[in-house]
């Protein structure tokens, strides 16, 4: 087991290093150029100055050389300054990260709290009207473009019936906890709609699969009532695939958060990534993208480990590939 974990950690690390190079190269291909931006902000700079600046910043060197010097600095903890915020990148990030954790955490808890009971309920009443309605609602949640859903929520709850704020984390001047909660309502609804449909469908499918198993029939045969069978025999086994899929869908949830944050001008990591890509903030874009990759990789690793931990039948000792 520990050998398996070590192997997967090394694998994730390799992917991360490769991605850091890919992202570094991609950032260099974005429109605009740091020296051009300097020239624009100071018209007195001559072409000779520009060439000298290029040499000073090492921008005349080949890509791999530039990447290696960036990586060396990054490993010593220096990720450079943000252009948009004029502060070190690592000083800016924590506040945004905290906001995203808030948004994603609350929405995730609500999604799971809805999806698990509703999914089980639908599974136990297959082919009934209730199951049909739940299924339709899930499809609607999966198919709705959430930027448009956000727009509609803003129109209804902030324009037509102005009861909720449409943007930001708090009122100007910073509000109390109630004020912050009010600002979270619409973003949380949006992000929850985005994820709850697929979670419910996973839960329903997993429960149906488990309820077909022999040990469930055995439990019924021994006289256990329905509630006992579901709670004691089915739930844990049905959760197994769901935990994995939910952890694997972390990257998707992050994409949803990016859209939600951008729509509600909510200062989180997703909006930070979008703004830094659009605003030529190369250092910030690099670090935030890498961070998003790192967290997604860790979530995937976590999914595999949770699977192993929850299902004692799976062994990761030696030989063979991952059986998935």
């Amino acid at each position, binding site marked *: 087991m520990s050998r398996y974990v070590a192997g997967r950690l090394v*694998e*994730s690390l390799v*992917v991360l290093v*490769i*991605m850091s190079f890919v*992202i570094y190269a*991609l*950032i*260099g*291909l*974005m*429109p*605009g150029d740091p020296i051009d931006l300097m020239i624009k902000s100071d018209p007195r700079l001559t072409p000779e100055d520009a060439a000298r600046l290029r040499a000073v910043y090492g921008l005349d060197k080949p890509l791999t050389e530039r990447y290696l010097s960036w990586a060396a600095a990054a490993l010593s903890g220096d990720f450079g300054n943000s252009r948009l915020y004029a502060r070190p990148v690592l000083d800016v990030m924590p506040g945004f990260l905290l906001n995203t954790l808030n948004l994603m955490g609350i929405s995730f808890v609500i999604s799971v709290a809805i999806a698990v009971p509703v999914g089980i309920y639908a599974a136990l009443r297959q082919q009934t009207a209730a199951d049909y309605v739940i299924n339709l609602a899930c*499809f*609607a949640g*999966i*198919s*709705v*473009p*959430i*930027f*448009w*859903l956000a*727009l*509609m929520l*803003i*129109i209804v709850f902030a*324009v*037509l019936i102005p009861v909720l704020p449409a943007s930001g984390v708090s009122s100007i001047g910073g509000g109390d906890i109630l004020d912050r909660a009010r600002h979270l309502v619409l973003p949380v609804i949006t992000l929850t709609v985005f994820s709850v449909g697929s979670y419910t469908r996973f839960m329903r499918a997993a429960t149906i699969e488990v309820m077909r198993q022999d040990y469930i029939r055995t439990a019924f045969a021994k006289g256990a009532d329905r509630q006992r069978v579901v709670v004691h025999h089915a739930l844990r086994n049905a959760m197994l695939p769901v935990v994995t899929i939910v952890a694997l869908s972390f*990257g*998707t949830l*992050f*994409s949803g958060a*990016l*859209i939600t944050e*951008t729509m509600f001008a909510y200062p989180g990591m*997703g909006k930070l*990534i*979008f703004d830094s*890509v*659009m605003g030529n903030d190369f250092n910030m*874009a690099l670090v*935030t*993208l890498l961070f*998003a*990759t790192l*967290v*997604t*990789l860790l979530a*995937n690793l976590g999914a595999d480990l949770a699977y192993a931990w929850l299902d004692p039948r799976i062994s990761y000792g030696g030989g063979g*590939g991952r059986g998935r």
Partner: protein
Amino acid sequence: MSALHETARPAARGPRTVWGLLLRRLLGHQLAVGSAAFLVILGCLAILTPVIEAGLGVEANAVDLTQRFAGPTAGHWLGTDELGRDLLARLLYGGQVSLFVGIVAALASAVIGTLIGLPAGYYGGRLDAVLMRLTDGVIALPLLPLLIVLAALDLNKLGLPEALVNDPNVSLYRMIVIISLVGWTTVARLVRGAALSLREREYVLAATAAGAGGMRIMAVHILPNVVSPIIVATTLSVGNVILLESVLSFLGLGIQPPIASWGNMLTGAQELIWSAPVLAFYPGMLIFVTVIAFNFLGDGLQDALDPRAIEG
């Protein structure tokens, strides 16, 4: 032939062929049938857009500042937008773009996925390990942030030919390329899994013994057996592609004006939610209905094509 066919077929109530069975099961899935009908109509409207436009006497990109924010009239069935352009015509063109990008990118993803999954599953070994690590790696990436970067790349710096960079449709091609680049993983895994188990079957062993090469076995003996999961995955991915395209276009990174797309029509509407909220309604509703139709159709196909569920 026809006489033989008739005697061979028992006096059954329904057709007994695989396709007949498939069709009957699909028809039992009302949502899928309704969705398919809707998508066919939408597809026809999209293809006939120029004709409809001429028939209504409007032009999608004709700006008329005297007619801004007009309500529905005989001339403009759904009214006009902030520049006095006909909303219906723009919605139709937007549909053309969204369907085109969605279908082409989903098909391209399916082709890439098949080309990666087939050899990985059939040959196995080191090739499989490398290709599947690649697949895992792509799956592990944060999709939307990556697409945002890819959509923001400067095509001049990529060294693409000038003529292509300045092509008015370049944003369309770019969307298709970048979505296909990240969208192939589902099909690759499906095909690889199927190829892995099919290569052990007797008929494949027989073909190998008869001297068939790897290429022939993959194309003739394995690929036909994975067609149905590929069809299902591709149908479902059309919906996803349309969602991705619309959000990128909405953010200003996808389809560029003046080409109308449902996503970029919402960009303009977002600024006007205080004065003209109705402009924000139609394009989003169409994205929603189209995506849900593709998802219903995919779901129905999945049930209909599932060989474990063969009934009477």
